[in-house]
Each structure stands twice: as structure tokens, then as C-alpha cells.
């Protein structure tokens, strides 16, 4: 069997073609173009999904937290608007606002929302910079995502303690 790809149409020898007996051929006894790697590429690739070993990289963590914090802030919008409304209604409604936010459980929720806002804020600035093609390299992207996580937690602690 002559190999169809031995010669290119311009007559140049095709180095990708193998002679009879070449061990790189799947069936070395038949002259052809199909190598081992070409044949294995068609087989379904093995899946390695060790879920306890797969780890979302840092930029991925920042990204999913951006979404989670945004969704959380959206869900708590009516509550936050209610607090804003009470705080600005009248001296009496301000007292209501005061008593609501002095509850430790409410404080805990507000602490979480403060983190959500600050994380969304910091990660958002990072994404805006990425949109401007700043910090796209792998190392810079990893570093900036670490900065986002650390700064947002630090700011949450500082402001949270100031307001507690």
C-alpha cells in the first residue's frame, strides 16, 4: 500500500510520513501515516476529578466571591433600605433604627454585609483594571487577587470595629 501522504502535491517529501517497519507506526508492518499519538488522541481522554484535590485558584475565589457578595447585597437591599428609611424618618424612627442595629444578631448580619460591600468594591476595582488590561499576567493577577482578599477583610475589621 503506497502512502498517500509520502509526497506533498508540490513533490516535497513529507517528514510526517513513516516508512514500512517504522516502530512509531501503529501497525509497523503496514506503511502509513497514522502514528501512535494520533491514534490515542481519538480515544476519550481519562478524567481525573479528585474533588478533594481540585482547588479553585485565588483569582477564581475572588471572582466567585464577587458574585456571591453581589447576590447577597441584592437580597438584603430591602432590609438596608428599611434601616436607611428608619434612620432618616424622624427622631422616633431613628430610635427604632438604633434599637434594631443594637441587636447582636443584626450586627452580625450587617458585619457580613459590610464585608460583602467591601469585597465587591475591591474586587470590582480589580476587574475594572483587568478591563483596562492592567495586571493580566498570571503572577500579577494572583497577587492582585490576594490583595483584594486581604484588603477587604482588613477594611471590614477596621470599619466593623469602629461601628460595632
Amino acid at each position: 500500500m503506497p502512502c498517500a501522504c509520502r509526497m506533498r502535491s508540490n513533490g516535497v517529501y513529507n517528514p510526517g510520513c513513516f516508512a514500512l517497519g517504522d516502530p512509531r507506526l501503529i501497525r509497523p508492518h503496514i506503511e502509513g501515516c497514522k502514528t501512535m499519538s494520533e491514534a490515542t488522541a481519538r480515544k476519550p481522554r481519562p478524567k481525573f476529578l479528585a474533588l478533594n484535590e481540585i482547588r479553585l485558584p485565588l483569582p477564581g475565589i475572588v471572582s466567585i466571591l464577587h458574585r456571591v457578595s453581589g447576590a447577597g447585597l441584592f437580597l438584603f437591599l430591602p432590609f438596608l433600605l428599611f434601616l436607611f428609611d428608619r434612620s432618616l424618618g424622624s427622631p422616633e424612627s431613628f430610635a427604632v433604627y438604633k434599637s434594631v442595629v443594637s441587636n447582636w444578631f443584626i450586627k452580625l448580619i450587617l458585619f457580613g454585609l459590610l464585608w460583602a460591600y467591601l469585597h465587591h468594591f475591591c474586587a470590582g476595582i480589580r476587574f475594572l483594571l483587568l478591563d483596562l488590561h492592567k495586571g493580566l499576567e498570571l503572577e500579577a493577577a494572583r497577587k492582585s487577587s490576594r490583595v483584594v482578599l486581604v484588603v477587604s477583610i482588613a477594611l471590614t475589621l477596621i470599619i466593623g470595629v469602629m461601628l460595632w
Partner: protein
Amino acid sequence: MVKRIVVGAHYGLRDWIGQRATAVYMALYTVIFALYALALPEMSYEAWSAMFSGGFLRFLTFLFFLALFYHAWIGVRDIFMDYIKPTGIRLGLHVIVLFLLIGYAGWAAQILWRL
């Protein structure tokens, strides 16, 4: 019956820019608000309401709320587009969120202009 695809990317750029423009505004507002809040002598009703009854901050705050609701609309829409596949349910949720956010905008205006 004309078959039309009710979802698509043809309206994407305006919202993409809107999401970022509102983000930049809200980031700037956050800094301005923090400066105002730090300058408060005390957290009392008088000081707090006086801060927002100043025309400048009231105007900026209302703009912040409008930016927030538009921004939230795009973000929540994107989340639904990613996770809610049945078109009917997705569109239903979109309408609910839109109505909520428009209502919130009215509420925010009422809070600020009753001062």
C-alpha cells in the same frame, strides 16, 4: 408563527458599559460618603439627617441609588442567565427583579426628599 430567540447578546454592550460606569460612580460616592461620615460630630438623628438634607449629598446619594439599582439589575440578570435555563422561569424572575428595583428607586426618592 415567527420563531424568535428571546435571549441574545445584541443588547450586551450598553449594559456592559452601564455596569462599569455605575461601578465607577458608586466607588467615588463611597469615598465621598466615608469622608462625610467621618466628619459627623456624633451619630444622632439631628447630625445624620442634617448631613443628607444638604442638597449636594442628597443629589449624589439619589444618583448612587439609581446607579446601584441599574448595577444590581445587570448583575442579577447575569446570574439568572448563567443558572436559570428555562426561558419562562428566567423571564419571570427578570420581571420580578425589575419591578422590585423600580420600587426601591421610588422608596429611595421618598426617603431622601421627605427630609
